[in-house]
């Protein structure tokens, strides 16, 4: 921690840098005749409080803001469940090609054969990797993919006359929040399934829950505990026998790429987060990119349009009487698909499995290195991430997981995910991904070991952390109490 200290100016809001009449942009100007705006448009607005800054000031604003923002390219970002792997620069170049970036979603189909080739290319590769019969790229993020899958399941049950009856979705207590929320968003009742002492689905509880109101089980595999569900085939069978469907939350696909195929596990459908497993950049919170895979029996219900190769030509299928309809306005996150395509082709047949193999190697290495200071919630080989518990420090030293994480910031690392899954006390969910080198993992583990010692020797160091950033710990309660979510122009005196 021999960090040197640099003073970084706090940036004023852009509105405070504004000067009336300033124009920041060399804009297209009209060469058509002037018009009477009021005559053309009717009532016009009066005020428009947008900032007026020069292009140079704008760039400075963002350059300096970027310096107080942490990305994968700044340092290690082991945010569990988020797969913060390296986002290759070449993907930005391919997605920036005018022949992709400058396409209108409603231009005639025969003017976009290349775009359709990308879509089908990604679909084909994802089918092979997941084992599913069909892939659609329409959903716009993971949660959107979950929702779309549940809609497929709903339509399936309706087609069998069981739509009304099957109003319950089972969700493990370890599941990500989007799972129950997506179920609710599809009008389902949510019933929680406990996890057993080994970190697996509690089969007894599952069995008990499997009545004929169950539409589906949403299972994350590997689970959010970073553990592969060894009973997965059995679970799917149980649910199927009860007339339900099994959905796989595929956020953790990075553990499986090239190594095992979810469709083979017995799942009926799954979502993928291309922004996690297939390296499209997270962009500070989005765009996501949420493909879904499904077995043949769900095919009639796929959202329109279905993009498909037929007779050597790629076309769009809109005429699908049983389709759930559209889930988004156009073709999904097309430019993200271009990135995913580029990424998939970089690995190809030869190297695809290396992704999951090294992701799992890295996670197990971190788990092994930290076992003395922070034991794993479950002592089993983990998959692409390991979930540890820092409960001891809370009990013995009054130091919460959050304090440890904030202290990690002072050591130069982005903290892992905390407090998720909810069933692990003071959880640390660490997902290193395969693109991190051993030295980085060692430095991170060394830091965490040092912090755990600090927790015992000098807990206030942790309570007061971080002290290395442009702001200290922020008051989130005050943020809610004195809600201030937008700037407003000062009223003229």
């Amino acid at each position, binding site marked *: 921690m021999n960090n040197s200290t640099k003073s970084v100016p706090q940036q004023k809001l852009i*509105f405070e840098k504004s000067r009336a009449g300033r124009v*920041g942009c060399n*804009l*297209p100007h*009209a*060469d058509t005749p002037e*018009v009477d705006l009021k005559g053309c*448009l*009717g009532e016009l*607005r009066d005020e428009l409080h*947008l900032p007026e*800054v020069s*292009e140079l000031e704008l*760039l400075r604003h*963002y350059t300096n*803001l970027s310096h107080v*923002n942490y*990305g994968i390219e*700044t340092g290690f*970002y082991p*945010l569990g469940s*988020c797969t913060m*792997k390296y986002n290759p620069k070449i993907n930005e170049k391919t997605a920036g090609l*005018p022949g*992709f*970036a*400058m396409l*209108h979603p*409603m231009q005639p189909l025969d003017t*976009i054969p290349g775009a359709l080739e990308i879509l089908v290319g990604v679909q084909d590769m994802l089918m092979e990797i997941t084992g599913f019969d069909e892939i659609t790229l329409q959903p716009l*993020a993971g949660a959107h993919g979950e929702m779309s899958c549940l809609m497929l399941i709903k339509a399936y049950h309706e087609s069998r006359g069981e739509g009304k009856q099957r109003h319950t979705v089972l969700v493990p207590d370890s599941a990500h*929040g989007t799972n129950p929320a*997506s179920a*609710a968003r599809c009008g389902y009742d949510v019933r929680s399934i406990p996890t057993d002492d080994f970190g697996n689905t509690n089969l007894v509880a599952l069995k008990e829950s499997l009545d004929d109101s169950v539409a589906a089980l949403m299972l994350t595999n590997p689970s959010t505990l970073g553990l592969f569900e*060894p009973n997965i085939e059995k679970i799917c069978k149980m649910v199927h026998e009860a007339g339900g469907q099994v959905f796989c939350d595929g956020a953790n696909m990075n553990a499986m790429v090239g190594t095992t195929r979810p469709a083979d596990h017995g799942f009926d459908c799954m979502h993928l987060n291309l922004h996690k497993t297939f390296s499209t*950049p*997270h*962009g*500070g*919170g*989005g*765009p996501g990119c949420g493909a879904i895979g499904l077995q043949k029996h769900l095919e009639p219900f796929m*959202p329109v349009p279905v993009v498909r190769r037929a007779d050597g030509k790629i076309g769009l299928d809109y005429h699908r009487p049983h389709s759930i*309809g*559209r*889930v988004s306005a*156009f*073709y999904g996150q097309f430019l993200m698909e271009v990135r995913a395509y580029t990424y998939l082709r*970089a690995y190809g047949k030869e190297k695809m499995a*290396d992704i999951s193999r090294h992701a*799992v190697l890295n996670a197990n290495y971190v788990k*092994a290195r930290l076992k003395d200071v922070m034991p794993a919630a479950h002592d089993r080989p983990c998959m692409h991430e390991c979930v540890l518990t820092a409960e001891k420090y809370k009990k013995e030293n009054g130091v919460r997981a959050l304090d440890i994480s904030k202290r990690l910031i002072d050591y130069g690392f982005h903290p892992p995910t905390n407090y998720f899954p909810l069933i692990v006390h003071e959880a640390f969910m660490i997902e290193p991904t395969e*693109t991190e080198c051993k030295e980085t993992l060692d430095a991170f583990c060394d830091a965490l070991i040092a912090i755990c010692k600090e927790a015992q020797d000098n807990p206030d160091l942790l309570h007061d952390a971080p002290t290395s950033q442009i*702001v*200290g710990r*922020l008051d*989130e309660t005050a943020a*809610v109490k004195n809600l201030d*979510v*937008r700037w407003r122009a000062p009223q003229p005196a």
Partner: protein
Amino acid sequence: MPYIPHTDADRKEMLAAIGVNSIDELFREIPENLRVKPGALNLPPALDEAQLMSHLHEISKKNVDMAHVACFLGAGIYDRYIPATVGAIISRGEFLTAYTPYQPELSQGYLQTIYEFQSMVAELYGMDVANASMYDGSTSMAEAAILSSGIKKREKIFISETVHPSYRQVLETYCWSMSLTVETLPAPGGMTAGYDKVTEDGACVIVQYPNFFGTIEDLGAAREAARKAGALFVVVADPVAMALLKPPGEYDADIVVGEGQPMGVAMGLGGPLVGLFACKQELIRSLPGRIVGRTKDHHGNDGYVMTLRTREQDIRREKATSNICTNEALMALAATVYMEALGKNGMREIATTSVRNTQYAMKQFKLAGGEIKFTGKVFGEFVLRFPGKNATEVQTQLLKEKILAGLPLGPFYKGMDDCMLVAVTEMRTKNQIDHYAACIKNVLAGKEVLA
């Protein structure tokens, strides 16, 4: 190995530290029969970086992109100029490769830009508050309907026929799964009519402004209908048009949603886009998605955090206001840079240029034999009728002249096979409009498009 840094020595040392002999051993909990045999996947071969670039370049060249044709196609996605600054900023790794700012202390840069984004979206729409973004305009609208239904405890959504057809399809899907019903208000003359159909079981009334046909809807009438039924008043609005038009907030809209793409986001075959979502202060605790607020650290310094988090799925699970998690932060950043690069004057200028170009085009196309289908005032888009001609055929003809003429409306509206939705942004020039006019003159006269 591309992107994977492990050397043989690394692997060996790491396996030793873990206490296993091989990577395979780490996968021992996966039942044998579920494991993929090495080399068993049928995937194309790996490409190196140079091959990737040329391969993708070849594919991209098969498409007709908007750098090679004059784009008069709009329909919610617009060919507007994207200043070079936008790309320079959003490609910075600190922004591009960050994720949701869960750790505010090392995410102040992004959090501040989101606060600025929220401020400007709220300002453009004339609303109290806006969130940090939704997936796209269509899902943003669907969320508004569901929010309304939740607030009003009513199960019927009224929506005008003049709302974007794809948006209405998405709404149908969402509503079906939530057991809500959608009722469409007709618009025979290109403007929503039949507000008398709105009944008191309506959760909300949704209109688009300007509407799908480009026409500037009478928001006063829409509001009255909503108010009378006790429903929420929801507007789908083009943010760029807001630089000139009286904003929905001034018509007392409860929720305003829209597509942010025209503000600095590449068309990209329609993705990624960015949904805008703004509402009245009183609805803020029902708002879907993320929202950033300003607060203080313990030294009293200003700082930004995600706030009102108890609305969200990771905390509230099935009771959350929405299931959205990852949103469209990067595209929201692009829109933020765009709004700030253009600023007040720039936004007004390009909106005004669009109006001028649109008015000129309407005049020239009429002279060339086209008809303006509807009589209402328009902002930057209008419906052009080709008497006796199929609009799709006209489109095909004009493509030969490197003009993307617009959106043939036949597939979307009954009886409009001879109609084309034509958008004229600030990017179109007088020359291009004149060329278009000359082409349709020929086509309407039954001649070759090239005179």
